[in-house]
């Protein structure tokens, strides 16, 4: 027994020290390569969308040239020899898209900022959790639900509001109407879109407001500011770029919304500035409206319109991302 405790004679060779290396092992190299490859899927998908819409829409761009953006006629007719004559012009649709988005922002931005202020600074804890869930839920509502609601519930109400606005403010050029017809107007589509983009603007604003540096808030209170004084002096200047960024994200959403706008808007291929009047345009909704009877040339034109929409929303989103990131970073 005791002999086992005796120190054994030193062996001939001590074990080699473990090799230390910062090189990744084979399994890790495979892991990192696979994950990195997959992470580029976003880039690849975005690039593919651009490439395929461009190649398939190119023939329409070539055929129409600049008319694609400046003309408002959209028709496929046959001349005396039975040959197709195509006119594809997006001007009225682009104008309508911008007009509707402008109405939506005009309504949604103040509403969202007020809601975000209420949620961040005024609402009692219990109400806040409830309202935050409700606003998040709004973002998850299917767009066709907004379409149905907009057509059957909001439509008749908004028509009445439009009549009131026209009666008292009709002397402002864009609030006048050529004929007294107020149904399915860009104004109504704008209200529906406003409701749809409120959640996104609210949540971005709320995020930026809640990152207001506490020391500045307390400094304002210590100097005797009331709550509103504090918000005006500290929160709004600090959060203004967040509000702008949120509004631009909402704008991107408003440009691309399809089904909801199609349900409530009377799409007519004629430029219309009168937001209360019963005709309007929208690129995304026009695409699904025309798709059903489209022949080969028209499908190409619709894909080209899709590309225009894609580039437009991408640009707006890039800009929004830039603004929001700057707003969030400056708080840290």
């Amino acid at each position, binding site marked *: 027994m005791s002999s086992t405790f005796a120190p054994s004679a030193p062996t001939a060779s001590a074990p080699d020290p473990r090799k230390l290396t910062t090189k990744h092992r084979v*399994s890790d190299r495979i892991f990192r390569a696979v994950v990195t490859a997959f992470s580029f899927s976003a880039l690849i998908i975005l690039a593919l969308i651009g490439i395929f*819409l461009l190649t398939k829409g190119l023939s329409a761009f070539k055929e129409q040239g600049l008319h694609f953006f400046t003309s408002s006629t959209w028709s496929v007719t046959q001349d005396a020899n039975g040959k197709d004559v195509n006119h594809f012009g997006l001007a009225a649709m682009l104008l309508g898209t911008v007009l509707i988005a402008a109405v939506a922002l005009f309504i949604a931005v103040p509403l969202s900022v007020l809601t975000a202020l209420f949620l961040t600074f*005024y609402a009692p804890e219990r109400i806040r959790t409830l309202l935050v869930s409700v606003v998040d839920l709004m973002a*998850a*509502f299917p767009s066709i639900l907004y379409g149905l609601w907009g057509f059957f519930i909001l439509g008749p109400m908004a028509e009445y509001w439009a009549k009131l606005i026209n009666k008292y403010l009709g002397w402002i050029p864009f609030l006048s109407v050529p004929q007294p017809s107020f149904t399915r107007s860009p104004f109504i589509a704008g209200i529906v879109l406003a409701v749809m983009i409120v959640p996104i603007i609210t949540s971005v604003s709320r995020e930026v407001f809640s990152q207001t540096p506490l020391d500045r808030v307390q400094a304002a209170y210590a100097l005797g500011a*009331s709550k*509103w004084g504090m918000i005006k002096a500290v929160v709004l200047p600090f959060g203004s770029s967040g509000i702008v960024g949120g509004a631009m994200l909402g704008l991107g959403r408003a440009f691309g919304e399809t089904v909801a706008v199609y349900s409530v808007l009377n799409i007519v291929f004629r430029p219309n500035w009168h937001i209360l009047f019963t005709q309007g345009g929208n690129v995304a909704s026009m695409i699904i409206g025309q798709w059903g009877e489209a022949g080969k040339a028209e499908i190409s034109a619709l894909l080209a319109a899709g590309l225009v929409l894609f580039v437009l929303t991408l640009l707006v989103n890039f800009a929004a*991302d830039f603004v929001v990131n700057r707003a969030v970073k400056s708080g840290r």
Partner: protein
Amino acid sequence: MSNSQSTQVQPIRPWAASTSDRAITGASVLVSALLTYILVATTPLKGKLAYFFVFFLIWFIIDSILISRRYGSKGVRDALAAKVTLFGGVIVMLAVASILWATISKGVKGLHLSLFTQTMRTTSFTDPFSNGGMLHSIIGTLYLILIAVLISVPMGILTAIYLTEIKGRAAGLIRFLVQAMSGVPSVVAGLFIYAAIILNTPLRNSAFLGGLALTILMVPTVTRTAEEVLNLVPRDLREAGLAMGATQWKTVALVVLPAARSGLITATVLGVARVAGETAPLLFTVGVFDAINPNPFKGGSGTIPTYIWAGLTAGTSDSVQRAWTAILVLLMVVLILFTLARTLGNKRMKAK
């Protein structure tokens, strides 16, 4: 001893509303409500919204007068700001309430059992709404969601792992692109699948292509939620794994992902809630079919959103009733998914 008891301090809250403050607030609300009623009843103003706006206006005025007597103009501005923000919040809630109420009150009328057991195979949309059902649409939507989940969840989670675990040089760019991708209009996703696959390959409208279109819309949601969740996993766990001699691959697969499991499920559920009701891309990629189509790779398929769309565009009172009922079913599905995501998320927070 008695001395120390007498100096015991009762906590007071000088900023809290006193009984008289509350009485004044209550009285002003009551008086404004009464005035509103009288005003709306006697003048040509009408409608529920008129009550709402007139009430807020009168309340602003009455309360401002009461407050200006005690706190001056600064107090009035402060109180007014509080009320105006409340006003904004209430308008948003009114819109949500109106949407929910419309869906429930109109949809409930068309609910019946055959809705979930029959298809539209022998029924037209304009037939009385007690005939036929949406079983084929429910099955089609399940197919679509299953396909979208199978593709977008691995894609989204791997991208999130790149952003949180590998933190490669391109992380900033990827995050930026994912954000941009979340803004891709749904109609463009559908057009893309049409241009890329239907125009170039022999594949035609099918549930599979619809699932691909939904994948494009679902990946950003899954990625961003998964990134947030993985960031919540404590660094200690990763370091412990590496210190035990595990490779990074084993640490991520056996430590980080299991720790974030419920959060990753939340990410999936949120993604599903995002795409379950998408209509526009399906019009280009899935087509229409009025019976159950068990093959997701060949032939059109019914889906809940296109069922609603067909009901809405057919335009008769029976078809619109079908649309409302189907949207009620869809809304229930979204609500259930949403609540599920919330509860899973809360559990995660509490476990921390």
